[in-house]
């Protein structure tokens, strides 16, 4: 893949959150690239730092948190922009957010403002980032809603969020995120609150938009099924690190990190019936304030040895495939 296809590179990003005089190293050295027209799926369990990754990129972090080191580079048409160096709510960041990097949030019930009409919420970003008359804005919102497959868009544009169903609200959220034709769309668990039949509709929509506008999508999820269906690239996160990343084929077919391997073995797969063996991962995720010394997965890992007491280096399996484990070769040959 050529470098000019890259829209975003994150290098060794460290984001720490400070609560009650304690420091949670929510992201502890995260690196990845996002390519134009491709979907990167970030998977992991709750608390692994996947949402903090998203809010680091959009600079929507909680107040008492800080990007300690590392860089986030947005390769825009005007040249490279170091997002991590921009002021959180400064004019440059606000010019990017919504216009070139936009976000779909998890819960469409709470992410929409209940006292504003859907149409005005959709066009708000557009109003800020472009010079349009009110009539044009309204027309654009209607067009967007129609593209999202909402029937009677001319009438529904004047509805309030409570008049929309869950699936329609998520469509409105997507319409909002797509209104300025962003280069990067970050979707943070966009379908977790929705039913499977509605989830299928939303994914179809995101995929279509990706192809039409060549948008890069960062999809945050905990569902391996979603990864298998939608992703081009996968990053598996555990306790603030990307423990494994590569193309879908790399990661799902040849997992090289014990956590990925265990995760894949612990989920029941549709169509395999009652006979399938599922093996739970032992123990639970450690307290982020009392982390293991070396490899974060070491206490739960069947491959753990003396060497795992020191933090592993990233092991390159192939040109596209990396794992953060001393024993990745053993894991590879095992699977």
């Amino acid at each position, binding site marked *: 893949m050529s470098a000019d296809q890259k829209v975003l590179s994150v290098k060794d990003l460290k984001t720490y959150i400070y609560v009650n005089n304690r420091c949670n190293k929510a992201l502890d050295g995260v690196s990845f690239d996002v390519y134009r027209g491709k979907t990167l799926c970030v998977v992991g369990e709750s608390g692994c730092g996947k949402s903090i990754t998203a809010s680091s990129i959009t600079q929507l972090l909680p107040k008492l948190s800080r990007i300690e080191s590392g860089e986030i580079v947005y390769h825009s048409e005007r040249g490279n922009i170091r997002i991590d160096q921009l002021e959180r709510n400064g004019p440059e960041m606000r010019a990017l957010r919504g216009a070139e990097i936009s976000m779909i949030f998890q819960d469409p019930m709470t992410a929409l403002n209940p006292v504003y009409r859907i149409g005005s919420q959709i066009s708000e970003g557009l109003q800020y980032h472009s010079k349009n008359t009110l009539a044009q804005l309204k027309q654009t919102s209607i067009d967007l809603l129609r593209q999202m497959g909402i029937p009677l868009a001319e009438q529904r544009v004047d509805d309030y969020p409570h008049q929309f169903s869950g699936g329609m609200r998520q469509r409105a959220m997507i319409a909002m995120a797509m209104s300025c034709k962003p280069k990067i769309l970050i979707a943070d668990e966009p379908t977790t609150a929705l039913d499977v*039949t509605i989830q299928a509709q939303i994914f179809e929509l995101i995929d279509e938009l990706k192809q039409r506008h060549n948008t890069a999508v960062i999809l945050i999820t905990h569902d391996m*099924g979603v990864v*298998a269906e939608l992703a081009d690239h996968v990053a598996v996160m555990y306790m603030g690190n990307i423990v494994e990343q590569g193309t879908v084929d790399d990661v799902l077919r040849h997992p090289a990190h014990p956590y990925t391997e265990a995760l894949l073995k612990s989920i029941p797969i549709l*169509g395999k*019936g009652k006979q399938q063996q599922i093996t739970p991962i032992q123990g*639970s995720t450690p307290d982020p304030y009392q982390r293991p010394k070396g490899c974060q997965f070491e206490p739960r890992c069947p491959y753990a040895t003396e060497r795992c007491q020191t933090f592993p280096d990233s092991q390159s399996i192939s040109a596209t495939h990396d794992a953060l484990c001393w024993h990745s070769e053993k894991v590879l040959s095992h699977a």
Partner: protein
Amino acid sequence: MPSQEKILHINGLKTYFPVRKGLLRTVAAHVKAVDGVDLEIYRGETLGLVGESGCGKTTLGKSIIQLVGAVGGQILYHEGEQTFDLLNLSPEEFKHIRQKIQIVFQDPHSSLNPAFTVFGSLQDPLKLYGVKTKAERRKIIGDLLEAVNMRREQMDNYPHEFSGGQRQRIGIARALCVNPEIVICDEAVSALDVSIQAQVLQLLQEIKEARGLTYIFITHDLSVVEYISDRVAVMYLGKIVELAESEALYRTPRHPYTQALLSAIPIADLDRKSDRIVLEGDVPNPVSPPSGCAFHPRCPKFKSLSEPEKQRCMGESPQLSDATQLTQPHLVSCHYPN
């Protein structure tokens, strides 16, 4: 293994919730959450109950355990020679039956009282069912905690000291403490992370085998249901639309809704891409469900039917009946099943 002995027989169960309107709060309409459900549950089986949100699966579970009152129908509980109708019980009978049917709730964070220790939460049912001394209760609860892979000493801890997976184990221990026959698991693993979900699923399987329980497993996650259930019932808008042996249902779904539902699930297997049937629109409002077959406005098959056939779908509500005439019944509620 499931036997042929019926333990629970649900007959035309209806649970409606009134919708009140206006100054006088008069009943304007009803939400027909459960609208005529017939279901037989055999001793020792796991029955999976699946459907989208709002289809009435939780209400059905709560109606069985009498947490919400049904407005019509029968729920017969068979115990040896005796049969109890759960909707017409005397207070003594009710106390007896409550012990036999227990429930594990979805959210392990809100279903435990934060002001009570685990022992405090678990001892009340034991007291009620006649375990008089504290030492005995401590012993029983300790044994139960060990049965759910926790440590005996943890009974003196408060809920906030536990992780989500542990809390759900406590929820399971609480359901087990009065030795029930039937356990209703209402989305018991849905709120848990995948790695923890597998631990709890395995635990539920082990406990079932050790104690010979019958499970009613309510969830929206069809992969989990396939893994755990012997038979699966699919619900849509308060009705069961398909009921069959788990394997038959997953291999050859006959109701168009089940087909769409199964095809919509992303599969964590790169070698099997499903041909996705994307349904249009949302689940209709249960206050005024569509006429005839409630699924017809979204049904992919409906569009390809001829006009008289369409009229039948729109006018006549299909009954749950056996479509295959094979040895194992495969019930489906559709005029034109596949």
